[in-house]
């Protein structure tokens, strides 16, 4: 079986600005294998988030192709793209973006509600995801009662609960202190190793870079360096 989960070929992305266009990504060619722990590294404005959004089927390339889990992103209908995100792709955001009026349990459960899973199966999956991130005792807490690190762990549980093949993490440690950052990254690293989930980060945080097994450096919308890092460097 083909282990390539993400294939980007001659990918270019332009955004209309005034009468012209702003080119955010130019001629990106990348392949990511199942189980990679990779990061898109670069300064703000280098195109990391745009690339992450295309991989996450939230956006489409202007030129070239982006194939995720065998699906050509540009060819997907809205419904198909939503289905891909709902079943196979998890998102982790810089600001956690937990729904404040819901409990930890309900936040994690939401993705499964969209899959019409039975209440019993949902309960099992949610508790398992909370166990992965060590928050089973906080299932009834609201996000406002949690620390930043705990919130991000809930966000990881939310992204992992549906057992996705790919997790896209956009600056996941940007709002965390050093201790919490390492804790979060270790959790993700464990999930990557134990479950074989492909993690793709967008980051310019040195702490994250220490954990990456592959660093793809972007500058001005182009891949300027693509290097594999030794696993024991952390």
């Amino acid at each position, binding site marked *: 079986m083909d282990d390539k989960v993400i294939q980007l070929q001659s990918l270019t992305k332009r955004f209309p600005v005034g009468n012209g266009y702003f080119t955010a990504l130019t001629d990106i060619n990348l392949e990511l294998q199942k189980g990679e722990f990779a990061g898109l590294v670069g300064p703000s404005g280098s195109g990391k988030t745009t690339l992450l959004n295309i991989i996450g089927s939230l956006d489409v390339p202007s030129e070239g192709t982006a194939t995720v889990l065998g699906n050509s992103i540009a060819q997907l209908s809205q419904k198909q793209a939503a289905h891909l995100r709902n079943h196979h792709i998890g998102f982790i955001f810089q600001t956690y973006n937990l729904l404040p009026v*819901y409990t930890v349990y309900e936040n994690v459960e939401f*993705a499964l509600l969209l899959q019409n899973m039975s209440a019993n199966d949902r309960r099992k999956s949610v508790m398992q995801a909370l166990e992965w991130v060590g928050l089973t005792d906080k299932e009834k807490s609201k996000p406002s009662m949690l620390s930043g690190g705990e919130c991000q762990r809930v966000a990881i549980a939310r992204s992992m609960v549906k057992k996705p093949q790919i997790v896209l993490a956009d600056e996941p440690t940007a709002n965390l202190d050093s201790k919490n950052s390492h804790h979060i990254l270790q959790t993700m690293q464990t999930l990557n190793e134990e479950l074989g989930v492909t993690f793709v980060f967008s980051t310019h945080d040195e702490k994250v870079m220490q954990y990456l097994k592959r660093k793809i450096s972007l500058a001005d919308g182009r891949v300027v360096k693509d290097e594999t890092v030794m696993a024991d460097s952390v």
Partner: protein
Amino acid sequence: MIKFLLKGILRDKSRSLLPVVVVSLGVFLTVFMSGWMKGVFGDMIDMNANYTMGHVKVMTRAYADNEAQIPNDLALLEVSELINQLSADYPDMEWVRRIQFGGLLDVPDKNGETRAQGPAAGRAVDLLSPDSKEAERLNIPKSIVKGQMPQSPGEVLISDEFAERFDVNIGDEISILGSTMYGSMVVPTFKVAGTLNFGMAMLDRGAIIMDITDAEMAFDMTDAAGEVLGYFKSGLYDDEQALIVRDAFNQKHSDTDDEFAPIMQRLRDEPSLKQYLNMADNMSAMMVMIFVIAMSIVLWNTGLLGGLRRYTEYGVRLALGEEKSHIFRTIIYEAMIIGSIGSIVGSIFGIAVSYYLQENGIDFSALMENVTMMMPTVYRAKVTPELFYIGFIPGLLAMTLGNALAGYAIYKRKTAQLFKELEV
């Protein structure tokens, strides 16, 4: 998913409380105003029907042409036969005779000399027949301030205001300077059995109420009547049925040029009342329309503000794999839930306040001393079955429409653009 949405609505007060308050307030105003107008218009319609117009009214053609002058010389004759015929033709209606008259009310002193005089507007109705409903129809027993109902011929009721002004007491004799239907002057004398206050400025200024047989005797109108009024036995005015009855009757009596031939009018044919009834019909529809438009604008704004506040949530939901159309649908479901709650609360309060004002009313008598229209001085709301839905449906509609407009902006965005805007 519905359970999930309900939890969100219940826990997020700013998502639910403000819209519920806005919808409740709007629905309350709609229900209350509708009940109030129904009551006020209904009171005026009933009053006109009971006191002057009936649900339908039969007069001679000549009388109808000069109705404002109360021309008893043009009154209907052989009224008993006419009423028998009407009762046979329209068994669902009750037919009664009425005589209206004007004159000078003369209050004599101990020596029989005029002590005081004032203009009077008299009304003769059937007060003494045991099965007559006329006293109740005119609310006479409840309007008596002093004394009692006439018990025998020759006894009359006069307005309490009149009695106070001219110092007339119960048992005093009064005379009326008037004319017979044949034009001769008459000065019949009556005994005051009681005084009354109708609560209508126009009537209370100089009212005399007497039994119809007394009027027949006094004004030489044996088996004659200025007007024969018809009332639906249900007590409720039915405009469509009244139209059928009127047209059938007038058709039957159309084949003549006799100016004394009878002609029938329905309540709505009275010119000022026609406008009034039309206004009553249009007012509720206008209220509801204004409410829906105004509330939609307000709730659109509320929906937009709520939508802006929840942009991040929508973005996260998109990222988690929820379709835009599903998000849009949940916005509508939420609006329907909140709209229903607000509409129920508003309807309950609106009906409760309407019921209170139906039982107690508001007394405007101090503001209506010089009013010449036949209007009640105590206004009441009226609780009708219509109130149970007249606010509820627009409340639900406005909330749903407002949020649909707000949600449409989200729905129409490209996913990528939306995701960017959603500040995730």
